[in-house]
């Protein structure tokens, strides 16, 4: 494999890692928002829950920003085609997501119950909706999306908003929400005590159960679903547009890669193993272990979707030959190389200072301190 093709695969893998980090870290914070009103029955309990992620949500959110930036830089055609095609859904995602920073920062500024209740609902919506959209996006990738290109790469999306909310996409959307809520509840267990801890423990068990069921049903569904198969084109490492390849749809084609490389079955196994492990760990009150197993579960789920799709990134249901693949949607060799250099330096640095930030702020959040009016708390 030449340098360009190698870089294309590296960036596809890196994008997968970024999506995993996004799902784990942003999903956790969104999960806390989504379960806030259930696990926290009093204002003080809710504030404890918010303060557990308070020092971290801002940094975590950058995984989302970085995910967007990396898609733009490494796979610009995917960035352009997917985000414009999913327009209304993207607006739903963005409009609910931009409410979240305000929910965190503004909620505790004023003591009136109506003010705080409103922001609690805002945090619920801004946690639940983006995670459903995130999961549903993967569902739609597996189903294919109706779009095509003109000669100059102007893209046209010919589906409707409701077409993106099909049953399979909703299933993957709820799967993502369950995993996010599970991770949020595990994080609450890490930092809370008493009733809050107990309710979060219950949430982990329910959401892990739902996630296991949905991941299994989704897997069976994909067996029967038409998948996409690349049967000809310029191939890896050749500068090209999506107008030069041939693609056909074949039932069960999403399992082709698993057949060719049986080692890939590890991905769904890790997914199931992580979910079951998180469930057991929560039962045993070992929430820190559970959190890491939950992160493993997310990674397994995303790796499963990626392994099924490869080399496809955005299949076109109306004109399969115009599907976006790793080979035709990527940036040029120079850009991928420069970006790989930056990622090699800065991703380890980010992991290092993020771990340090979590380590410094480790331990239980004290309800008494918040009740006393600790100046810096949410």
């Amino acid at each position: 494999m030449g340098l360009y093709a190698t870089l294309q695969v590296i960036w596809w893998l890196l994008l997968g890692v970024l999506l995993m980090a996004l799902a784990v870290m942003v999903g956790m914070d969104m999960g806390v928002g989504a379960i806030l009103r259930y696990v926290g029955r009093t204002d003080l309990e809710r504030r404890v829950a918010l303060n557990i992620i308070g020092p971290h949500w801002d940094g975590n959110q950058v995984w989302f920003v970085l995910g967007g930036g990396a898609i733009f830089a490494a796979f610009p055609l995917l960035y352009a085609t997917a985000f414009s095609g999913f327009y209304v859904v993207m607006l739903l995602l963005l409009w609910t997501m931009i409410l979240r920073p305000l929910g965190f920062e503004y909620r505790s500024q004023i003591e009136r119950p109506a003010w705080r209740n409103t922001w609690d609902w805002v945090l619920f919506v801004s946690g639940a909706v983006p995670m459903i959209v995130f999961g549903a996006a993967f569902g739609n990738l597996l189903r294919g999306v109706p779009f095509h290109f003109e000669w100059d790469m102007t893209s046209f999306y010919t589906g409707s908003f409701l077409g993106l909310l099909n049953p399979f996409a909703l299933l993957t959307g709820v799967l993502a929400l369950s995993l996010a809520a599970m991770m949020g509840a595990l994080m609450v267990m890490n930092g809370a005590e008493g009733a809050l801890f107990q309710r979060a423990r219950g949430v982990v068990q329910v959401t892990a159960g739902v996630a296991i069921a949905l991941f299994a049903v989704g897997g069976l569904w994909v067996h029967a679903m038409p998948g996409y198969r690349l049967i000809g084109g310029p191939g890896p490492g050749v500068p090209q547009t999506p107008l030069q390849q041939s693609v056909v749809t074949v039932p069960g084609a999403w399992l082709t890669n698993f057949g060719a490389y049986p080692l890939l079955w590890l991905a769904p196994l890790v997914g199931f193993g992580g979910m079951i492990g998180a469930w057991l760990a929560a039962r045993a009150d070992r929430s820190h272990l559970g959190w890491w197993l939950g992160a493993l579960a997310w990674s397994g789920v995303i790796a499963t979707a990626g392994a099924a799709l490869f080399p496809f990134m955005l299949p076109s249901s109306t004109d399969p030959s115009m599907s976006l693949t790793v080979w035709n949607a990527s940036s040029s060799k120079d850009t991928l190389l420069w970006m790989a250099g930056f990622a090699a330096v800065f991703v380890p640095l980010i992991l290092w200072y993020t771990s340090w930030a979590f380590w410094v702020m480790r331990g239980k959040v004290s309800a008494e301190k918040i009740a006393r009016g600790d100046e810096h708390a949410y």
Partner: protein
Amino acid sequence: MINGTVVDLSRVQFAATALYHFLFVPLTLGLSFLLAAMETVYVTTGKPIYKQMAQFWGKLFMINFALGVATGLTMEFQFGTNWSFYSSFVGDIFGAPLAIEGLMAFFMESTFVGLMVFGWERLSKGQHLAATWLVAFGSNLSALWILVANGFMQDPVGATFDPFTMRMQLTSFQKLIFSPDVQSKFVHTSIAGYVTAAVFVTGVSAFYLLRKRHVPLAKRSLRMAALFGVLATIGVITLGDALGFVAARVQPTKLAAMEGLWKAQAAPMPFNLIAFPSQTEQKNDGVVQVPDLLSLLVTHSLDRTVLGVDALERQARRRIEQGIPAVQALRVLARDPTNAAALAKFTAHRRDLGYGFLLQRYAPDLSQATPAQVRAAARDTIPPVAAVFWSFRVMVGLGLLMLAFFVLAALYSLHNTVQNKRWFLKVAVWMIPVPFLANECGWLVAELGRQPWTVFDVLPTWMSASTHSVAYMVFSLIGFLGLYSIFIVIELYLLVRAIRLGPAEPGGAGEGRTVPAAAHGGKAEG
């Protein structure tokens, strides 16, 4: 073919969301450095009042920061959602600085902002100070990479169009980041942020001095801000001048619009202090001129000139004619990438490809293009003169006003008489909106002046937008306007409220959140 209404609505949406985002960003850029400076004084001198200052201004910083972050999220995705052709056309270059911004800057800023707010008791003094400085460096590095991306739109160096992938591709990363436009614009814009923060801190401090509340804190804050403001304002004006000098070379149409220069003038050229430009008649009414000044400003000499609109349109017509074969050859290559004749024809005319695109708006079939259509496309190369001309003058006028303001503020503060100059304190409070207005005008000069291109000389705006329906665009525009209007009301309410509550007085119960008994009797939230 893209619907013109959709393009216009996409532009309105982008401008509205970018201008809105740009209300919050400059304050973050500057205030983060002021916070770091205050905390540094606290750590080196050990005087608790500087800690109180860092915490109080830090609280206002966070209210502003939240909305800056929130509205930044939509900006990052708007290129994809609403400018998909633009994104695939230049994503190979434009995407990289955005991704690096996340990797290098925004991650650092956001991670340490959490520690800055929540870490006062968990971190040592030195560690906390480091966190605050990293927030300041992070936000300013962020601005650098965003402006590298923007610089490419203004002066697309380090890239070339590749007919086999149908897009611009990176040829030199170094050229991209060291482009002269990027260098001057980064410094100009980030220092404009320092000016914004300096006016904000001066104004709020003046409010306390007028009310005789928190006087020691207000006097110290005002002095730091005023000195910072004098230096920063001088910096903004110097770099603004450098930017004008760059524009004269790389964006002559923007410069002609900024100066209302319809026809070439003999050197030394006079400066239009006041004028009312008419785009259709290509002339100015009600002109008030300063002799010789324009040559001095934009060429830094008395014997050189710059081109007027008439000469620039003639140049554009020639380039449009050269662009026709480029587009025609490209269409052949799209069907048949191996066609050597088409490739040779394309290579010979590639530098005028963008001008060929410009003509396609009027002549979808370029082989049938008429001279009238070429003239219409050439007319399009001139940005909206009156809007650019006046945005520029308002920006510069406000900049000079702020310079005078800071000189006075610094003098009065150093003489320790500022608390007695009630007229000046009142002016200072009223100055708070001024830098925000100047910043918005600066954005308008830069981005309206770039029209009709999204990437100057390369990609016309009319081609760049996503192929949405008008209904979708109306829906999203209403959604953005509605949400953003609610946000600004909440933010202003919380900011004003936090300012009225004031900083925590040492020893007060529930430090930081105590309401003076007079305010509304009782303790605010904890």
